[in-house]
């Protein structure tokens, strides 16, 4: 990085013709105004549509298309509709299904992935780049390419619509993601402590368990959150391989039925979306720094 920096600077300095006399500097107030306008746009971008979902979720069905920007005709009715099973919707069950599917996916991915990440971050061995390439290729793999063979397989062995039929394909993207994030975290840990523990007589296993694991806990936690959110948000595979009994919330929302056929029950769907999203948002807000670090850890090279 140092080299390229020098080059860039030299380039700028070298080309005399490009050099402009230091012009009138931008007024500080104008700069501030520009920054805060941009900040306002970003905040509205992120929060605006979500806010609108919230407002609609609490709005009376009769006033679905009311465009008043603040909450009007506030009611809890939509949430009752969401959890009511009268029209064949099983949203409560779908919520439980999502917790089961995402939970199992996360646990399996973490248990399996943590060892691989340790080896990739910490050990020098033959074939390391092949493994790394393998994990990367797996993370780019299109989920839809799994559906056809798995659809056939699960139908043949009677697993169609079971939890394992949904967890297995989810692992295909949760595990590479877990390995990716964990490897990045493990690479930056103070490993000299491990050496110190070994000098003090700890076995490699003990050094890992007693010294490294507690230090790695935040990274492991972040990887688990990312895996959980990704599995929670999965729709493609679940839309094809789940049954009514095992469908997760994403599928339940997409097929949410209203009072009349062909009339979208917008307010209830927004309420359902609100229920699904709020726990994620609380989690994201609570761990935002770690999540940003985890999301960008794999992608950025200095």
């Amino acid at each position: 990085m140092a080299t390229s920096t020098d080059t860039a600077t030299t380039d700028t300095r070298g080309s005399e013709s490009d050099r402009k006399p230091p012009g009138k500097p931008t007024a500080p107030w104008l700069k501030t105004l520009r920054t805060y306008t941009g900040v306002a746009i970003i905040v509205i971008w992120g929060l605006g549509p979500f806010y609108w979902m919230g407002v609609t979720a609490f709005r009376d069905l009769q006033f679905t298309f009311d465009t008043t920007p603040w909450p009007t005709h506030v009611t809890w009715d939509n949430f009752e509709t969401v959890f009511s099973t009268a029209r064949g919707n099983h949203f409560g069950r779908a919520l439980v299904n999502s917790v089961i599917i995402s939970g199992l996916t996360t646990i399996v991915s973490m248990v399996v992935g943590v060892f691989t990440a340790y080896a990739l971050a910490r050990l020098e061995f033959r074939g390391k780049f092949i493994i790394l390439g393998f994990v990367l290729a797996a993370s780019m793999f299109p989920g839809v390419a799994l559906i056809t063979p798995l659809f056939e397989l699960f139908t043949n062995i009677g697993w169609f619509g079971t939890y394992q039929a949904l967890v297995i394909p989810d692992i295909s993207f949760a595990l590479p993601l877990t390995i990716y994030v964990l490897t990045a975290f493990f690479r930056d840990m103070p490993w000299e402590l491990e050496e110190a523990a070994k000098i003090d007589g700890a076995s490699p296993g003990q050094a890992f368990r007693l010294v490294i694991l507690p230090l790695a806990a935040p990274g492991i936690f972040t990887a688990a959150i990312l895996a959980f959110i990704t599995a929670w948000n999965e729709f493609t595979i679940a839309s094809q391989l789940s049954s009514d009994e095992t469908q997760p919330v994403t599928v339940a929302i997409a097929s949410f039925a209203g009072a009349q056929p062909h009339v979208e029950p917008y307010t209830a769907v927004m309420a359902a979306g609100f229920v699904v999203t709020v726990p994620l948002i609380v989690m994201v807000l609570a761990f935002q720094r770690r999540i940003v670090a985890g999301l960008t850890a794999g992608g950025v090279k200095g």
Partner: protein
Amino acid sequence: MSTETTDAIASTEETPPAEPERASIDPHQTRRAWLLIAPTLVTLAVVIGYPVVRAIWMSFQSDETIDPQTGLFVEGGFAGLENYAHWILQQCGGQACPPGTNAASFWDTVFITLGFTVVTVAIELVLGFWFAIIMNGTFRGRGLVRAAVLIPWAIPTAVTAKLWYFIFAFDGIANSLMGTSIVWFSDKWAARAAIVISDVWKTTPFMALLILAGLQLIGQDVHEAAKVDGASAWQRFWHITLPLVKPAVVVALLFRTLDVLRIFDLPYIMTGGGAGDGNDTTTLSILVVNEIRSGFNSAAALSTLTFLLIFAVAFVFIKVLGADLSQDVKER
């Protein structure tokens, strides 16, 4: 520049390489490493390896057909490249597939998918860069901004689809704000625009965060030095910022391109793959799902073509644009 994110990312980069003297490979360590990796390999072999091999095998088999004489199902047997010809040459049993079949829309679907990819990623790149530059500045309320950009990322795509379906409803807020009366999901271009807007909304923050992390690696001193030397803001952006964030941008582009190439949830939920009753918003992933109902083997051929396309694009990115995803590891 003093938030914890910055610190976390900065410290990532400043950590000295862990014991470079370990360069020589110790066979004992190799054995231990492979033991640690074995569970992952076994798992990936089951969840990805098996389906891939099976899909490729299926793609060379004929679909079961109903014998016109007996009315019974007959095993298809080896089909050679028939399933691939079915898609690429749009051949149905030796003649051109009739319009309205999945195969007849193959090339339309390919171009629709590529179109979504190019347009969405281009818009996201520009907006994401702009967001990142703003977020890299000094201002009050960094926490709020970071939280705001994470919200579209955290909302499940299925919910995003429903949310924007509501926003783009005929009586919805989009028409109301713009003073238009567009029937968004009946016109093919309006429907495509709605899908692009929803995807851009959801994923620009991710792009911005990746670019921001790249921007934060550039020391303020570099900019100061260039400023002293009389470089204009534009020159500093073009000659300093851009070359230095290029690796981060290329990786972000790669991730997003591969994501949009397999886009399914948004067009499937918002339009079911068509505007009105056409297939003007059918992407490759939707076509695969539609085809499963017609025949496993032809669907397997189509999904094989889809992942070949995705790997070809990834290969181009890595070879031509130099997306280096494993640089950190190679350095060690």
